[in-house]
């Protein structure tokens, strides 16, 4: 219960941050990715702001034995680079550049009643599904 309320609150703060920074504005995103054209560097400052807070915050939080509402931290454990990481990130980058949305802003933009965002979210889930079919067939 406490977990759920905190997840809701964290989601709201995240959505406010995406909106204020205009990550939810696909024109802004494409302007940021348009390095060779009329480049708008604004969104680099989103990353700077978020990284400043998390870099120091993580150091403090991860010194704890456990989080407040849970017995354990759930952290990524892979360390090695592999082909999937590179290929997947390249495919994601192409999709981001075509659409102007990454996953968080696509969801937050649903709150702006954006038709584009709805198409985006449905297509992301189609991509998840296709990946699962692909992995079931070709991995192992």
């Amino acid at each position, binding site marked *: 219960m406490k*977990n*759920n309320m*905190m*997840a*809701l609150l*964290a*989601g709201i*703060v*995240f*959505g*406010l*941050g*995406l*909106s204020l*920074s*205009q*990550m*939810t504005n696909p024109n802004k995103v*494409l302007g940021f*990715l348009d*390095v060779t*054209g009329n480049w*708008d560097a*604004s969104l*680099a*400052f*989103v*990353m700077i*702001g978020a990284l*400043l*807070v998390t870099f120091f*915050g*993580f150091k403090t939080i991860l010194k704890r034995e456990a*989080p407040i509402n849970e017995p354990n*931290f*759930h952290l990524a454990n*892979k360390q090695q680079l592999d082909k999937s990481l*590179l290929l*997947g*990130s*390249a*495919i994601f*980058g*192409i999709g*981001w*550049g*075509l659409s102007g949305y*990454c*996953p968080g802003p696509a*969801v937050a*933009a649903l*709150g*702006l009643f*954006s*038709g584009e965002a709805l*198409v*985006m979210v449905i*297509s992301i*889930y189609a991509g998840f599904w296709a990946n*699962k079919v692909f992995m079931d067939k070709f991995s192992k």
Partner: protein
Amino acid sequence: MENFTPFSAFFGGTLIGVSILLLLLFNGRMAGISGIMNGLLTSGNTGRSWRGLFLVGLILGGLLFEMLIPDFYLPRQNYPILLVALGGFLVGFGTRLGSGCTSGHGICGMAQLSKRSIVATLTFMFFGGLTVYGTLHLLGVGQ
């Protein structure tokens, strides 16, 4: 750079950072959005409820912001919806294969100086830039 908005971008970024810290400090979870979206369908009941509420929160955050500051920016018009659909599909497929997106690799992983996340972030930024070069300058989409 007539649309340069470094301050709102920076403060928006710090809010995103605060959200990530809240979810880690209280729930022990990393706020990687593509992982949360995927987990909504693939995890059990308890895993589903916090993920669902986080995503509802994201939508409410967007809605609340629009109520507080209406028309903060102009919505995009006349962009080919097929490109959005194709882009979304690739975003879904790619973030699963690459284990993360802008939030998971670009912020959570980079803040821990994870080699995987730094390489992933450079890769999707590069391919994002390359794609926009192709659509905007070679094909003239969205002009």
